[in-house]
């Protein structure tokens, strides 16, 4: 099946991909171990007829129940004097064959049902899935028993029974995936490219489902071997004289007390076989599942790892700032590659000020902001240099407990998507009071009163009622108001807002922006406002820092930046956005793409896209030049007033 999946891809792909997957698999030492054991077992089982083994079915009453390590009988003999080693080898052969066949049968029919149900949806889906549900309403093994009861005991019947009861498992899994894929836009696109339903299902959808089928197979085959062994153990599978591992175990059970080795050895063999398959299967899953491949399924710890090479002794907080970030360096370590997401970022924020951090995706604006309170997921993120001063305290040298005390109290956060940032299973009231109680020693009912006042503050009607609702019962705008209320719960000095209005509609965005603007003046809170939109910046920010490829390239007041950008990137970024009310304006696209932060050039990262780039731009890192009071630019050839780039 793996072969088919790979060979259906074009040649170029095969060579590029195959060693990669195998290397990944071999990197996983457990999977490799499982694979080696499995291959060894399979080889021995396949070679059984050629190995110098005793005939497994020849009885020798004189030699019955010999213990292991006897001469001529390495693993001893059973109650009829048959050689256990030989029977194990032949039994493994049978068990493997049965398990494999049952898996293939179940996978074929289950996947077919799943594919058709998931793709056809509607009535076909309901009919097929109701049938599957009906089968699943029976406890698995019970249904297998019932089938064997009808068909009569026997190895083949046991195989059918196990295959049948596993069909629903495949069908459900594959249907879920297919359903998801069929809603994807590429399926619509294929339809508009003139492909028929059958072509779409088997040419477009199936290749995307195949890895899931393989994963499901590799994780169920061990299970199927166990189950067929179980049926044989009960005497319902393999019938004498033929033996699989299960029936050997069943025979051994009768003489458990006198000759335990007769049942212990086949059981051990099943364990080794199934375990090697499971280890290997997990390895296959890890390689094929894209989520696991990129190492996403790691648990981010409570605070970003701080791993500063040298103590930043030279860095001291500048007097006037509530928050002063200096030379912040945050990296992501992913599979041997280092992404320098923030490569020496300086930001400072005066009391009550709103600083906009503007940049495109990958510019490091969010990472810089999230690094401040240690909220960058770690692994893979780590802070490797710089300092962030909140007042006099360097946040990167504080204890975890001190950081916890500051989070949500002195520094609070508002995130982008208000639905995913609120916990779906707790009421608004619970989540708000919790934020208050984390920092104040007051009673629950007092906290609830404060929560109600907070909702009033963010202009939510009926606050007492709203405390009882769950996030999904509110609209996006309402949810973002809740998040803002939560950020204001403990009179934060600094609010870090990461694209707080990007997920909202324009009319709602306008409201949230004016609400934030009013509240920051009322509360005299400073805001670090991350956005990609210069329009939003104009609406709320006093000053702006523009970021590109992990560095701040320009800072200044909002007016200065918008009216006379000094860095060519800023100038081009402003010019490439259509502006409301100026439909005739020619959009000046920036050709090319930002560099990857795992492979930054020696000099200016924008040089390759910059119309003003000279040789010196590429030669060495560019330092920041102060071009006016509070205005700086990281450029050797800044744009002059009135100049067009």
């Amino acid at each position, binding site marked *: 099946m793996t072969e088919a999946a790979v060979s259906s891809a074009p040649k170029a792909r095969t060579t590029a991909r195959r060693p990669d997957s195998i290397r990944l698999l071999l990197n996983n030492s457990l999977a490799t171990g499982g694979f080696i054991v499995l291959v060894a077992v399979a080889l021995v089982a396949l070679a059984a007829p050629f190995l110098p083994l005793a005939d497994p079915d020849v009885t020798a009453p004189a030699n019955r129940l010999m213990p292991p390590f006897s001469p001529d009988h390495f693993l001893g003999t059973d109650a009829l004097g048959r050689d256990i080693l030989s029977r194990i080898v032949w039994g493994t052969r049978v068990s493997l064959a049965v398990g494999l066949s049952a898996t293939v049968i179940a996978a074929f029919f289950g996947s077919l049902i799943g594919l058709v149900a998931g793709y056809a949806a509607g009535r076909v889906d309901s009919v097929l899935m109701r049938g599957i549900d009906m089968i699943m309403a029976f406890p698995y093994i019970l249904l297998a028993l019932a089938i064997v009861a009808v068909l009569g005991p026997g190895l083949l019947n046991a195989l059918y029974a196990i295959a049948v009861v596993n069909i629903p498992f495949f069908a459900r899994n594959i249907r879920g995936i297919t359903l998801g894929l069929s809603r994807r836009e590429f399926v619509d696109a294929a339809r508009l490219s003139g492909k028929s339903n059958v072509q779409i299902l088997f040419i477009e959808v199936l*290749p995307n489902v195949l890895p899931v089928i393989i994963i499901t197979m590799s994780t169920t085959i061990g299970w199927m071997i166990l189950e067929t062994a179980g049926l044989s153990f009960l005497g319902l599978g393999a019938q004498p004289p033929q033996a699989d591992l299960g029936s050997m175990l069943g025979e051994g059970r009768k003489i458990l007390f006198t000759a335990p080795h007769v049942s212990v050895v086949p059981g051990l063999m099943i364990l080794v076989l199934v375990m090697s398959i499971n280890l290997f299967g997990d390895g296959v899953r890890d390689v094929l599942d894209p989520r696991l491949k990129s190492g996403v399924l790691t648990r981010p710890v409570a605070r970003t790892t701080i791993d500063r090479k040298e103590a930043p002794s030279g860095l001291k907080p500048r007097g006037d700032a509530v928050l002063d970030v200096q030379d912040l360096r945050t990296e992501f370590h992913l599979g041997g590659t280092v992404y320098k997401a923030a490569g020496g970022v300086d930001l400072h924020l005066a009391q009550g000020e709103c600083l906009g951090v503007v940049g495109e995706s990958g510019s490091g604006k969010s990472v810089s902001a999230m690094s401040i309170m240690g909220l960058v997921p770690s692994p893979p993120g780590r802070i490797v240099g710089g300092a962030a001063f909140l007042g006099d305290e360097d946040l990167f040298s504080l204890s975890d407990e001190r950081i916890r005390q500051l989070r949500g109290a002195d520094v609070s956060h508002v995130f982008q998507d208000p639905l995913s940032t609120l916990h779906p299973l707790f009421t608004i009231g619970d989540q708000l009071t919790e934020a208050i109680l984390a920092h104040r020693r007051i009673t629950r009912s007092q906290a609830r009163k404060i929560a109600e006042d907070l909702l009033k503050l963010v202009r939510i009607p009926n606050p007492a009622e709203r405390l009882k609702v769950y996030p999904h019962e509110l*609209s996006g705008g309402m949810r973002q108001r809740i998040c803002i209320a939560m950020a204001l719960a403990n009179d934060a000095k600094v609010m870090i807002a990461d694209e707080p209005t990007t997920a909202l509609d324009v009319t709602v*965005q306008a409201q949230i922006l004016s609400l934030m603007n009013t509240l920051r003046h009322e509360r005299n809170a400073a805001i670090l406002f991350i956005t990609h939109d210069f329009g939003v910046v104009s609406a709320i920010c006093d000053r702006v820092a523009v970021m590109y490829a992990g560095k701040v390239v320009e800072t200044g007041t909002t007016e200065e930046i*918008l009216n006379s950008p000094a860095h060519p990137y800023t100038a081009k970024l402003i010019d490439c956005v259509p*502006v409301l009310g100026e439909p005739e304006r020619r959009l000046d696209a920036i050709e090319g793409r930002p560099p990857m932060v795992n492979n930054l050039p020696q000099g200016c990262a924008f040089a390759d896209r910059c119309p003003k780039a000279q040789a010196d731009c590429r030669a060495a890192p560019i330092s920041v030049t102060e071009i006016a009071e509070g205005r700086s630019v990281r450029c050797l050839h800044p744009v002059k007033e009135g100049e067009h780039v």
Partner: protein
Amino acid sequence: MSEAALLTIDRAERVFGGGRTIFGMPKPAVHAVQDISLEVRKGETLGVVGESGCGKSTLARLIVGLDRPTGGSITLDGRDIAADAGNDPRALAKKVQYVFQDPVSSLNPRKTVRTILTAPLVHLIGLGKKDQERRLEELMEAVNLAPEFLDRYPHEISGGQAQRIGIARALAADPEVIVLDEPVSALDVSVQAQVLNILDGLKSRFGLTYVFISHDLSVVESVSDRVAVMYFGRIAEIGPAREVFANPRHPYTHLLLQSAPAPGRKSLVPEDANTELPDPYNPPPGCAFFARCPNATHKCKESHPPLEAKSGEATHLAACYHPHGGEEE
């Protein structure tokens, strides 16, 4: 309308849900799109703008035949699109194409760009091997991508490049109309401009007609000849882009324009009132904007205002009893 329309939508309606359960209880129904009538003339760009849930994407899917209207009709060159989508989807796909919002998810992750672009050439216009090669080169050149991209997989290219592949695919069979559903909203601003410029160039070069759907007012303004503003499944206002943006008649359009952030615009108009859309399962009998509207009167609550010319310009229509900036009625 002076010139003959290429695409005519007449009272189109799409209801989701509805019907009855097996016990005869009526199932809840939502009007995603309701009573939409408009025309698109050859060679123009019609912008469709509205916030989430206004039905603009449903409208787009109706136009390309990926979904069928439950009422009214949509005709292209006099032929019914819903009927064509059922009988001869390939003939329809030859004339109308679609560019998706999410460029990466619109490309099959397991196919090369070449395979993806060849599909319409084979299935829609039946080109032979040699012609395919030539056409592929033309397409790549048209969207300004180097031919080596043909052998890459979607995960090996950036979002902006993927969207250009999406455009190339739409172009492949030489269609008359292309429906662009939020084609640049998933892209970074610098890339957005590249794609918008390419779209602009292709339109004049191949004589295309665009239906351009977006939530971004400034983008719509910059590309459209005419604009339709949608609210809660209906057209609130439609007219020449310049007219609508300079002189909005529907209070909703006015609110949208006031709310849109723009560089240099210091304060956005706050609206403290309710921004909630009406309950789609229980729509109001009158104007859906009633609860948010500063000009609302009792009349607006009673019946739905018809889409009519409000400002002397016969081509500029608004569905409002008390239009913004005018003392009509």
